[in-house]
């Protein structure tokens, strides 16, 4: 690509802004997210409350900051679980192949055929709601898609000359997997990570919106939106700001993924 990738630039800037916003929310909010103030009930956006206030007079900016921080943490944790285990399983399956690989991949295909949000709902129906249960359920359900992605890449490289010669030189399998093959797969994995991150955000937000994600006492953009919908007509900003944050967060990372695919020539 001789052109500069605009997707990467715009996506990067957007993501940096959103990360700064959400990271700030982890440490600081202008008001206490739970502090109610009777005179500010249903107040529209103003200098004191840029995002306005909800029906209980709580500052929406503070609550959005807190919710975004929580959503981001959950999404990253889900991604970590899915990615680490998916990488291990996919790398081993792709590198060694054989009957175990066939069996594991059939299972992965079966799981990946179902929408992860629905499956996670079902898992939560059994183990109950809560932040860590959400992370566990979504994380485990993200493993198959990563495993399939990684496996495909390893299949591509395991019979290449540089891998064969490494094997002839007596390099250990683990070293071949992580030092020789893995670096080649980064463009594809990076693209997969951006998609996974967005699915994690979407998943957590949707589940919390349905009321089967995090506990109502835990901050979450999805749960805020569930509450806000009841006041859609009277206080539309209550819906608009958390919604905008979710959308921009996903859009930024999505554009980065698009840029990565464009630059590296990875199929989407």
């Amino acid at each position, binding site marked *: 690509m001789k052109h500069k990738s605009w997707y990467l630039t715009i996506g990067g800037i957007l993501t940096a802004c959103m990360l700064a916003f959400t990271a700030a929310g982890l440490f600081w909010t202008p008001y206490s997210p739970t502090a109610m103030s009777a005179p500010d009930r249903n107040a529209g956006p103003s200098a004191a409350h840029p995002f306005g206030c909800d029906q209980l007079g709580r500052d929406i900016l503070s609550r959005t900051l807190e919710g975004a921080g929580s959503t981001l943490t959950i999404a990253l944790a889900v991604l970590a679980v899915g990615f680490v285990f998916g990488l291990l399983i996919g790398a081993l399956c792709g590198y060694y192949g054989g009957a175990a690989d066939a069996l594991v991949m059939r299972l992965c295909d079966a799981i990946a055929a179902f*929408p992860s*949000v*629905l499956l996670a709902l079902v898992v939560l*129906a059994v183990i109950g709601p809560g932040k860590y249960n959400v992370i566990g359920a979504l994380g485990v359900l993200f493993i198959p898609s990563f495993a399939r992605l990684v496996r495909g890449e390893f299949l591509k490289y395991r019979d290449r000359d540089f891998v064969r010669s490494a094997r002839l030189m007596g390099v250990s399998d683990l070293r071949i997997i992580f030092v020789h093959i893995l670096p080649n797969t980064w463009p594809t994995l990076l693209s997969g990570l951006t998609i996974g991150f967005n699915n994690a955000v979407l998943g957590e937000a*949707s589940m919390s*919106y349905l009321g*089967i994600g995090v506990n109502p006492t835990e901050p979450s953009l999805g749960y805020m*939106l569930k509450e806000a919908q009841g006041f859609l007509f009277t206080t539309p900003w209550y819906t608009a700001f958390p919604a905008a944050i*979710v*959308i921009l967060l996903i859009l930024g990372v999505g554009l980065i993924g698009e840029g990565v695919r464009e630059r590296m020539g990875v199929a989407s």
Partner: protein
Amino acid sequence: MGKALLKRLALLIGTLLLVSVLAFIAFSVIPGDPTASVLGIEATDEQVAAFRARQGLDLPVWQRYWAWLTAFVRGDFGQSFKFDMPVRALLATRAQVTLVLAAAAFVLIVAISLPLGLLAARRGGGVLDKALDWLVTVTTQITMSVPNFVLGIGLMYLFALVLHWFEPEFVPLEDGLWPHLRFMVFPALAVALPKSAMTVKLLRGSILGELGQDYIRTAYSKGNSRGSALRRHVLRNAMIPVVTFLAMAIGDIMAGSIVVEQVFGIPGLGRILISSIGNRDYPVVQAVVVMVASVVVGCNFLADLLYRVMDPRIERT
């Protein structure tokens, strides 16, 4: 084709059996004995015994599974814990509502994305191509960034509260097909829009890819116009990956429908699933899960058949 069909059919049945085992373990074994939670601690011994006998709780697990499975296949989904009625009766109309919603969403995706995909695949020289590329990609990214339920809330706000195109009150099928569909268009749109954008992008890429193939040059050399080359050669081949994508999307469409039902207050499977999870009404959850899974697996099966018909290159074994 016969042998391949049998093999796919065996795989379909195997997958469904696996789903049933998992659903049984998840909702009939793991939660443990539901007697106390259903009847309360003040229940008499006779009541407990009667309940246990009716639910078949005294039998060994595999017998319970078999009894559950055979009953399920016959259409007996068990008894709801929360509502004192058969699960089947509870789900009948709700399943119909969700299927209408999902089907409407699917139809919308096809109706929106096929013409737009064809339009976007027009080539008009370098600058226009680049602009179209941008437009399609950015639109896709933006629509993909909006969660179904947020899109639903947005549509609700715009069309119900601001423009008053529809009342934000569910219209059941009994009020007539047309009013029902008129209402359902909006939630279906919330499910369909992101997938439509992705389909447009895929179809455009697929058509442009096919147009660059050598056999298109052959088609032109025989006297085909662009239109007839597109109709006769490109469309079918370009549709092959799209059909696969749409089949894979059916699971997401079901999931999207279930989420969007919450936004529009539609009494479908999603609604009852969510409330049953909250109530720990496991027979209902179990039935919904198996039903949704069956739809997804069944659609994938059909898509696989269609794919084989469309692409003769697939090994027919």
